[in-house]
């Protein structure tokens, strides 16, 4: 029990420091939009993932209120996506995408294996890889749509 809360605390600290360290000032809005968008997407799809018992979270922040791991769904994965989105090249780069998806799948597998924060039920590691790939791909399209009109959004020019 104790170990899991220390890990959650570390995740929050790494996340907050990571956001401010890795996302430069001119990209803050872009990063926040990517964060919020991914949060909405993962919230929606995780409802089904947990409803149909693909994943399970034995140790949770609010054990009464919800079944999914709040820190990971609400905070950590959206944050990773926002860093991914801010750093990706203009065109969708498949190698960058694959490495990133593999890393976060590995992260979830490690969390699953060594802690009680997450537990695979009928989910497998490759299933998770495909799931994250889908979430990232969908969110990436939505964010690109949001920023496609360069005349409306000139974030790149700001602060330079």
């Amino acid at each position, binding site marked *: 029990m104790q170990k899991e809360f220390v890990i959650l605390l570390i995740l929050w600290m790494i996340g907050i420091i990571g956001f401010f360290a890795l996302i430069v000032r001119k990209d803050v*809005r872009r990063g926040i939009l990517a964060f919020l968008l991914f*949060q*909405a997407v993962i*919230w929606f799809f995780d*409802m089904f993932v947990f409803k149909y018992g693909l994943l399970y979270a034995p140790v949770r922040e*609010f054990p009464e209120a919800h079944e*999914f791991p709040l820190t990971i769904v*609400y905070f950590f994965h959206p944050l990773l996506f926002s860093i991914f989105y801010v750093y990706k090249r203009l065109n969708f780069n498949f190698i960058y995408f694959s490495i990133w998806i593999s890393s976060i799948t590995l992260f979830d597998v490690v969390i699953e294996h060594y802690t009680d924060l997450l537990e695979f039920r009928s989910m497998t590691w490759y299933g998770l890889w495909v799931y994250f790939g889908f979430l990232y791909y969908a969110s990436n399209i939505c964010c690109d749509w*949001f920023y496609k009109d360069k005349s409306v*959004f000139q974030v790149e020019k700001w602060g330079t």
Partner: protein
Amino acid sequence: MTIEAWILLGVYVFTAALLFAIPREKIRLAVVAFLFKQFITFLIGLVVVEWGLLEYPVRLFPSVSRSSFTYEFFAYPLTCAIFNVWYPNNRNLLIQFMYYVAFTTVLTIGEVIIEIYTDLITYIHWEWYISWISICLTFYMTRRFCIWFFAKEHGEIY
């Protein structure tokens, strides 16, 4: 179907119909308001249920979350998007204030009626004015966020 299921369906249909009230040139503003409101309701919605202030006896995804997915994921954020795209930005402060009061009051009255007559929501340690204050406050927070997000660097008038 029970009356609760019909109301949930009605909420989805009605709020989805509100999508057509968003002008084309303000879609991005609506998206930002919608997403930021979700960011607030996601967490607060879970906290109030965890602390036993509110209860949603009939809800979507009952096995996953004890808060109201319909309200917190969809209906309330979308109302907030409408709130922001129709905001009377160039009018005087009294009209802006009344705009807040009108939106907040309509939502609160709706919630109170649903609380009294259905099992969709039950107040435990909660009062209608807490709803009113929290709705008004979150509208204001979202409004400030949207103004910041679309500040002059983006070159768009909200």
